[in-house]
C-alpha cells in the first residue's frame, strides 16, 4: 500500500515501498523584483563599472564611461521606439476593433472580407509589411488642399499598425466567443436588439478578457520596433550601429549590444509582470 504522505509509511517499515512522486511546479513566470534582487543588480552594476574602469588603458576611455557618454543619444532613439510602438498600438487597436466587429457580423460579405483582411495581415511577416509600407507609400499626400509629408518613421509605424489590427481583430472575436451563450439568450429574451446586446452586455464584458493578451501584444510591438532600423528609421538600433562604427572599438561590441538589450529588457519586463498580474486579477470568475 503506497501512501502519498511523505515520510509516514516509508519511515515505519522495511518493506519495499514506492516513493511518492509529484509533478514539481516550476516557479511562476518571472523572478519577483524584490529589494533583494535590486541590491544584487546594483551590486553587479557597480562591479562591472569597477572592472571596466580598472581595465581601461592609458588614453583609451573605459567602457562604462563610453556607454555613459552615448546614453543621451541612445535615450532619444529609444524614445522614438516607444513613440512608434504606442502610435502603432493605438492606430492598430482602433482599426482592429472595427475589423473584429466585422468578424462577428451576421452579414456574410462583411464577415468574409473581415476574415480575409485578418488572415492576410496575420500571415504576412512584419518585416515584409514594413518594407512594403516604407517603399511603396508615397512620401507625401494631398488631403483637401494641404500637402502632408509622410516621414519614414510614420510609414514604418503604419507598417507596424497593420499586424496589430489583425491581431486585435482576432482578440475581439475570441473574447466575444468566450462570453457564455446564456448572456446572449437573456438579452434576447429581454427584447434587446443585436446591436444593443453587443454594446450593453457583451462588449463591456469583453474588455476585461482582452486586457492580458492586448498587453502582451504591446510588448511584442515594442520588441518589433528595432525592425524599423532595417528600413531606415533612425531609432535606438540604428543609433547603436552608428555609435559602434564611429567609436571603431571591437571591445565595445558586446557591452554596447548588451546595453541596448538591457534598455529593452527594463521596459518590457515590468509590462510582462503587469500582464500576469492583470490576468490573475481578472481570472476570478
Amino acid at each position, binding site marked *: 500500500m503506497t501512501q502519498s504522505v511523505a515520510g509516514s509509511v516509508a519511515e515505519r517499515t522495511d518493506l519495499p515501498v514506492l516513493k511518492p512522486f509529484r509533478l514539481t511546479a516550476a516557479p511562476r513566470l518571472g523572478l519577483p523584483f524584490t529589494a533583494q534582487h535590486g541590491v544584487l543588480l546594483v551590486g553587479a552594476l557597480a562591479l562591472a563599472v569597477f572592472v571596466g574602469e580598472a581595465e581601461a588603458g592609458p588614453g583609451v576611455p573605459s567602457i562604462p564611461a563610453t556607454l555613459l557618454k552615448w546614453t543621451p543619444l541612445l535615450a532619444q532613439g529609444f524614445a522614438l521606439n516607444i513613440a512608434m510602438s504606442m502610435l502603432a498600438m493605438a492606430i492598430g487597436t482602433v482599426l482592429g476593433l472595427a475589423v473584429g466587429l466585422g468578424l462577428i457580423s451576421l452579414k456574410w460579405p462583411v464577415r468574409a472580407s473581415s476574415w480575409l483582411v485578418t488572415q492576410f495581415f496575420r500571415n504576412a511577416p512584419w518585416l515584409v509589411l514594413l518594407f512594403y509600407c516604407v517603399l511603396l507609400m508615397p512620401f507625401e499626400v494631398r488631403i483637401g488642399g494641404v500637402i502632408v509629408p509622410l516621414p519614414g518613421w510614420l510609414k514604418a509605424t503604419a507598417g507596424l499598425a497593420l499586424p496589430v489590427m489583425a491581431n486585435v481583430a482576432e482578440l475581439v472575436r475570441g473574447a466575444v466567443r468566450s462570453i*457564455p451563450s*446564456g448572456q446572449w439568450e437573456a*438579452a434576447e*429574451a*429581454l*427584447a434587446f*436588439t443585436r446591436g*444593443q446586446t453587443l454594446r*450593453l452586455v457583451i462588449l463591456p*464584458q469583453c474588455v476585461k478578457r482582452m486586457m492580458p493578451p492586448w498587453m502582451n501584444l504591446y510588448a511584442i510591438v515594442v520588441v518589433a520596433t528595432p525592425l524599423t532600423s532595417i528600413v531606415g528609421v533612425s531609432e535606438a538600433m540604428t543609433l547603436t550601429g552608428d555609435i559602434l562604427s564611429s567609436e571603431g572599438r571591437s571591445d565595445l561590441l558586446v557591452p554596447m549590444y548588451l546595453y541596448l538589450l538591457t534598455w529593452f529588457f527594463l521596459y518590457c519586463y515590468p509590462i510582462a509582470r503587469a500582464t500576469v498580474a492583470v490576468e490573475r486579477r481578472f481570472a476570478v470568475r
Partner: protein
Amino acid sequence: MTSPAPERDAPLIRMRDVVKKFGATTILDGISLDVMKGQVICIIGPSGAGKSTLLRCINALVPIDAGSILVEGQEVNDPKLDKLALRRKVGMVFQQYNLFPHRTALANIMMAPVHVLGRNRAEVEAEARALMRKVRLDGKEDAYPGELSGGQQQRVAIARSLAMQPDVMLFDEVTAALDPETVKEVLVTIRELAEEGMTCVIVTHEMGFAREVADEIYFTDRGVVVEHGPPTDFFSNCRDERTRRFLSQIL
C-alpha cells in the same frame, strides 16, 4: 387556484402539433398546449424530453419546424413576426440566471425598460426599486451579481423579467442550479407572482411546488405530451403507464 370563467375567449398561448428537430433528432414531436390568462401551468418530465426547448419556442428563441404557436393571437412561426414585440409580452427566467455580471442588480433590472422600451429613467428606477422590495432583496440594489448567492441572483433575474411588464412569464427549471436552502426563497417568490394573477408556464422538478401552485400539470416524455390535468387528478389518478413510472421514480 380556481380556473377562469368558461366563456373566456382564446387562450393566451396556444400550441398545436409543434414539431422541432435538431439535425436527425426529433426533440418535440407534436406538442399541443393551451394556457389561459391567469393560469399557472407546470410542465414536468424526464430530462432530455425537450421541456426547455418547448419554452424557448414560445418566445421564438428557437424556431419550430412544424405546427403553430399563437401568443395572444400572434403566430410565433410567422417569418414576419416582430420578435421584439413578442418578447415584451413574454418574459423568461433561465436555469443559469444569466444576469449581466458587469452591472449592479438594480442596473440589470433597469436596462431593458430604459434601452428597449425607451422609458423615462427616473420612473424605471422607482419601479425597479419596488420590484427589488417585492422579491425581498431591498438593500442589495448596488450589489453585483458576483456578490449575491444563487437564490438572490435568481430573484433578481425574476425581477428583471418583471420590469418589462410581460403578460406571461416562462420559468425554465429555475431552481435546478440552486442549493436546497435557497430553492425555497425562489419558489415563494414565484408562488406570490402566481397568486397575484400572473400567467406562468413553469418547467420544474419540484413536485411539491407543482402540486401547490399549478392549475394544470403537463407531463411530457420523448417530445410528446403524455398526459395532463389538474394536480389533484394528476398525482392520484394518472392514466398512462409512463406517467405512473415517472412519478414512482421521483415521489
